[in-house]
């Protein structure tokens, strides 16, 4: 049994490219803490990120990390999990990566319910392209490509996930690390597709949705009387009603995964010996005689 690791064991030597004060730092440190507390080994963690400020996170977690193309973290993560079930697979990206260019994959990854964790770092703006509206920007949000205010309705990613059949939905706030660590741990341990949306303020471009703004506008669901995260209608109400942004584990359900439904063997595909021809090959050919 390998020694229990600390968050430091999940750090890389690569210096961060994020702005000082960026909400993504909180997500990264919670992730390292969660990995350590779960007893994971870096060699067994596959960490896949999208493109954008948030996408850089894969460079900062000591693991098998994959920093691919914009919006496609989930298909890559899905396949890595299917290829090797022994791995802990985590995907991460921003609100643009997940809810705009990757929205199609998001919905279908939810439906597929592959056993992986998806962290959406929501800063309600496009940071790396210098401050445009994102899918979660408020209507009227003034940005470089919407100087008269964002004309679109913000996308409710978690309500979308619920509608698509998500089996684990949680939301955190990057200034509340303890809750985030617990949430990420629960998401990783959830058997199926788990989404954790983190409100992760952009200190450079988003002057509306700041740390202070969030502190005034979030509500911890876990302290709400009688809230249990196993009621889909209650979850939908919590996610869509006007008022404070709910934090905590919002919904959780056990349902067969893609792996269960396809009868995928426990033996990782990546460990199969393919170098020797199989006796069964001949019978397939014989059917064409």
């Amino acid at each position, binding site marked *: 049994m390998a020694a229990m690791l600390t968050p430091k064991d999940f750090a890389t030597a690569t210096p961060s490219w994020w702005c000082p004060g960026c909400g993504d730092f909180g997500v990264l440190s919670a992730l390292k803490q969660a990995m350590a507390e779960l007893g994971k080994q870096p060699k067994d963690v596959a960490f896949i990120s999208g493109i954008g400020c948030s996408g850089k996170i894969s460079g900062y977690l000591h693991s098998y990390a994959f*920093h691919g193309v914009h919006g496609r973290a989930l298909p890559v993560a899905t396949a*890595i999990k299917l290829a*090797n079930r022994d791995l802990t697979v985590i995907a991460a990206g921003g609100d643009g990566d997940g809810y705009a260019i990757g929205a199609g994959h998001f919905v279908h990854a939810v439906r597929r319910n592959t056993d992986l964790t998806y962290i959406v770092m929501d800063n309600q703006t496009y940071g790396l392209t210098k401050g445009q509206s994102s899918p979660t920007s408020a209507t009227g949000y003034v940005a470089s490509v919407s100087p008269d205010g964002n004309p679109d309705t913000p996308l409710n990613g978690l309500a979308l996930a619920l509608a698509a059949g998500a089996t684990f939905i949680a939301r955190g706030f990057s200034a509340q690390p303890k809750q985030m660590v617990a949430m990420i741990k629960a998401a990783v341990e959830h058997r199926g597709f788990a989404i954790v949306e983190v409100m992760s303020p952009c200190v450079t471009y988003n002057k509306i949705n700041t740390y202070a703004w969030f502190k005034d506008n979030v509500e911890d669901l876990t302290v709400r009387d009688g809230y249990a995260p196993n009621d889909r209608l209650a979850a939908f109400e919590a996610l869509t009603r006007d008022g404070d942004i709910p934090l905590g584990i919002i919904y959780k359900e056990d349902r067969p995964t893609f792996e269960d439904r396809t009868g995928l063997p426990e033996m990782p595909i990546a460990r199969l010996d*393919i170098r020797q021809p199989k006796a069964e090959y001949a019978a*397939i*050919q014989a059917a064409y*005689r």
Partner: protein
Amino acid sequence: MILNSVEVMFGGQAGDGSLTTGDLIAGVFKRMGLEVYTYKDFPSRIRGGHTNYVIRASENHDYGMADAVDALVAFDLEAVEAHIDEMRPGGFVVFDNTSETIPDEVRRSDVTWYEIPLAKIAKEMGLELIRNTISLGVLGALVGMDPEIVRHDVRGVYQRKGEKVVDLNMRAIEAGESYVRENFADRPSGYGLTKGTDGDRLIMMGNDAIAYGALVAGCRFMAGYPITPATDILEWMSKQLPAFGGVVVQAEDELAAITMTLGAAFAGVRAMTATSGPGQALMTEAIGLAGVLEIPVVVVECARAGPSTGMPTKTEQSNLNHLIYSGHGEIPRVILAPGTVAESFELTVTAFNLAEKYQLPVFLLTEQALCQSKATLPPFDVGAVQIDRGKLIDDGEVTFGEYKRFAFTDDGVSPRVIPGIPGGMHLAPGSEHNDGGVITENAANRARMMEKRMGKLVSMRDDLPRAVLHGVADADIGIVGYGANTGPIAEAVDRLARAGILTRFLQLRTLWPFPEDDIRMFFGGAQHVFVVENNYTGQLERLIRAVIGPVDALQSVRKYNGQPFRPIEIIEPIRRIAAVGEPVEVI
């Protein structure tokens, strides 16, 4: 009497069962010892619309369609009107005259007409669909099929539906045969086939051979999005892979299909996807990622007529440029093109080996006229298949800090770990990176990384499938082509030789990196070189011109109507230039 060469066209409306009967005819010819090629010419719809199934039987394997149709089985007037001009003089038409008659202007006098109320007879037998089997009896009697083999094969197809269905089909065959005996004794078709032995042969579609090749090559992950004419591969793999511990994912789109393929390959599984032009356009996004992350993926493109939706069920070779040049930035890539069903298997295995040995995307480019066509071929020697996983580290461990995923090496290929290997942790970034995977825009590193990746195209030279030379090596007249055109060109070469015109044919099997040396050597001593391809702009010809410079000797033979070449279309232009030898008989 035309012996042992016949092309049958089975024409009607989509969904009327003619595909099953077409397969049956192909199987009967095979069991009679003939070599078979089939071509499905169907519309992009499920029920209705003119469809036809061509079955060509001859004594030469690896040929494509003949010059003309010998026997047209037409279930409606539309089928006659659409194909009467393709009939060989001396051929015959079987026409269902239950509800339509042949107008005089369509009734060619140089073909024999057999008008039979097939639907009416079928109705009297109690099942309209049985018309197909009745027509099989008619065709068998006219063309000289072995009645025992016909019955054996029909029984084989319908056995699972029960003895009642088999019995009905047996009576339907008899009804067809006896109708010919009783009504057309005075009107012989002029056709006959001698029976040989089937021997140990297969009859298989190009897509089946690709999928089987992938399985034998160790592919255990496929992601795909349904698209004609590539879906067969996805269906085949979804049936077979689970039994071998693998998995198939029907992705939400081609962006997901290719990125899933990358993910599985990154994790250490031999992975593939298959698509056609429209899907390839979407996959373009991630091909560059495969190149820069040095991930081995195999992408099968089953080309169809473009652009846009184009003609989804028709054949074309208009995607060569797309495969070579698509994507921003520059990456090394390989494009292989099988010319036969047998090569579809062999080159698929090669594609997986090249992909892993050189850690890059390999395309297998085929076309509708090959990938959805059946052909007879010898069995595959699966025991002889070699699996070369290159510098893969899928066992043991490496030392963290010393191990560099993108290490600079002489051949440009770096040792590749898979997730789970202790010590191999690294970042695989689509951004430019150093040998350890750390993102950097350092100018010297960038230049060196470009040279490392692109240099793989040079180090792989000896491993690439060589072009095949057909015909007479020092003939004055040359032909260059690839893919589905291999059969018609090879037949043209054989028949021109019989007419005293010697030619040689360079069948390209590696299309990228472009086989410049083979092309240069081939042009040496050639008076005329014909480039045969299924596109408008001469995509292959332009690549050749870029290698050998301006040449007078180069002639184009292009076809872009969605139909594959018939050999006479290649023979004629060559015969005109050669201006020697005897006229070539239309076959």
